[in-house]
């Protein structure tokens, strides 16, 4: 009996592969959201496990806010080529130019503008399902997400009216114009993701490891110095040894001071961490309901 036992990562892995294959089996035109971040790196490996030796039966989709870390985009492009996968990129800038995404007066951040850009891409390619790397342990509103999260024809999530999900039987049926978001990593924690990266020897972008970078102190955190919002004269700028723990836009991703140079170092660091990974993202701090509001509007 004891030979027929899976450890926790193997359990999470087989659950996620099952979910991916349900997507391939049930949908006509699925896409896999790939940002180059650690969660979507795991998604890609799981897709390989689910579908090889065939080609991945879905393209990769990325919404480029124009405020990405350059290291991340390089990595994203390289991985897609390595996998022989089709990569579709839709830019917030183009969506703004076309009037699909309209910034509020004085709005510099691109986080909200990702939503109409993504919805337009879904419509353009008639995607009926998008696989994303969100995890329930990230945030309170996410904790209530299903694996198969139904979106109406406006891309909206209705938390009060979710389909019950029982055993591993996913109801993937949708009507034309409706859409499904699928989250194979629902049950993974930040630690599981890094342990999986370690076990599978997956490459991650270099910004996850400690490096020297000029940072500016804003709203209680160290943000990378960029041309987008250059430091004001009264702002403190320092060169620090930092890394990112979770990646958002370059203007809102807090850098953490860390000596972690390897995946092993990162795992040790997370084990001792005293703040959650989203604690370093300015976009979530705005209000306690920030994530919930964005999700209802169609955010991942």
């Amino acid at each position, binding site marked *: 009996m004891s030979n*027929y036992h899976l*450890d926790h990562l193997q359990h999470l892995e087989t659950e996620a592969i*099952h979910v991916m294959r349900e997507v391939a089996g049930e949908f006509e035109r699925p896409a896999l959201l790939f940002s180059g971040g650690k969660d979507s790196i795991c998604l890609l490996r799981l897709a390989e496990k689910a579908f090889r030796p065939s080609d991945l039966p879905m393209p990769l989709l990325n919404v480029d806010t124009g405020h990405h870390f350059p290291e991340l985009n390089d990595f994203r492009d390289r991985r897609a080529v390595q996998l022989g996968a089709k990569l579709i990129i839709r830019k917030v800038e183009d969506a703004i130019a076309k009037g699909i995404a309209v910034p509020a007066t004085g709005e510099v951040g691109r986080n909200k503008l990702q939503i109409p850009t993504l919805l337009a891409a879904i419509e353009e390619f008639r995607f009926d399902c998008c696989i994303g790397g969100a995890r*329930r*342990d990230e945030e309170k509103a996410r904790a209530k997400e299903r694996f198969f999260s139904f979106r109406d024809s406006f891309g909206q999530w209705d938390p009060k009216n979710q389909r019950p999900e*029982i055993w591993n039987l996913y109801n993937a*049926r949708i009507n034309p114009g409706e859409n499904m978001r699928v989250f194979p990593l629902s049950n993974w924690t930040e630690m599981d993701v890094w342990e999986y990266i370690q076990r599978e020897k997956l490459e991650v972008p270099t910004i996850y490891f400690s490096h020297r970078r000029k940072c500016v102190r804003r709203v209680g955190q160290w943000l990378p110095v960029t041309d987008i919002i250059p430091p004001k004269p009264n702002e403190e700028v320092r060169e620090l040894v930092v890394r990112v723990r979770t990646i958002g836009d370059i203007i809102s991703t807090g850098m953490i001071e860390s000596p972690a140079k390897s995946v092993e170092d990162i795992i040790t660091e997370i*084990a001792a961490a005293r703040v959650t990974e989203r604690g370093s993202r300015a976009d979530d701090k705005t209000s306690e309901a920030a994530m919930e509001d964005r999700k209802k509007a169609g955010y991942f």
Partner: protein
Amino acid sequence: MVSATPFATHPVVDILRFNTCGSVDDGKSTLIGRLLYDSKSLMEDQIEALERSADITGGGQINLANLTDGLRAEREQGITIDVAYRYFATPRRKFIIADTPGHVQYTRNMVTGASAANLSIVLVDARAGIIEQSRRHTCIASLLRIPHLVVAINKMDLVGWSEARFQEIRAQFEEFLPRLDIKDVKFIPISALNGDNVVEPSKHTPWHPGPTLLSHLETVHIASDWNLNGFRLPVQWVNRPNCPTNSRLHDFRGFSGQIAGGIIRVGQKVIALPAGMTSTVKEIWTLDGSVQEAFCPQSITLVLDHDIDISRGSMIIGLDNLPGANVNLQAKVCWMHPRPLQRGKKYWLKHTSNMVQAVVTEIEHRIDMATLEPQAAPSELALNDIGEIQIRTAKPLVYDGYATNRLTGSFILIEQGTNATVAAGMLMPPHEIVKPENGDYVI
């Protein structure tokens, strides 16, 4: 979210999934908050957020329930309206908590949260004792065949830590237990608010020999929930690389799925249903290389030595412990939709990776939640009702009884048109099994 102890990097051997249930205000959210808080699974920013909302709304008192009551609507109404999942780890185990709400109208959420659980915690308010909700939730846990149950008798601080009261409630509970299918039940007196017997033993209960709730969760023996007796591979996806430049890949044809029962080895004979053809396993393909053997619940790709007709929804089975195959099925269902079950109406039935049309031909009985007795021939099954029905499917289903195999014995019903998931079903053991005597097993 992970434990802050340095042990957290040690290999964790397994995962325990559990859910909490009880009536509104029995203290579920407080208990989960307490488990996370006392096991040091909370991070500083989460504690900070708690303190911030304590200053705004709670008159300065930290409310542990705020940790799990995530959605704004809930905060406004002060109730938990959906299933929320929480994660924590101790050096011994990883835990997935499904926080399932106690309102009558949300029974469907409890079924959702509990369906995959190894263990259920039923919370009882020590002042109120066993009430209809406690019975209902225990009945659902039994119906779903959750192997372990903990009855956490909460708010013991409000009954003066009375052992007599604890024993009285325990006796009330044990009175209806024999009617149910639960083998392992543990009673623990706690105060979720103050933390007694949750993580730390209480000095108020010298009469309780232990364990605390957390140490029980860490040590309860979760004997394999998975059935290793009859091989079942519901085919999810046919893997055909169709690669003209690589001759090996050009001919590759694999059947991908998650093993839903049993063990499979290279060289073993299998039957593919509904085609009914026999074949032999040539290769068990995984990204990490071919393997000689695989078992439930691994995800694999099987290569067979004959080219036979298999597509999504087919089931590949072993020659031992054969499943049933029939268009007439008997099942227990939990109804999950405001529109009641209608006899004669067509639904989609999803079973493993298979989707067929189905008609409910008979509603045999409905369980009266107050008495747990079946009432014969009800006119309908409404939201949150549990009952037994007969179904006829458009094509034969290859299945096992739910008691034998949770994965091949369960199904959902989907309403046509709205695509709403309307029922969770558990199949009764088959009357007729697949007949292996002749070379052809067509069903």
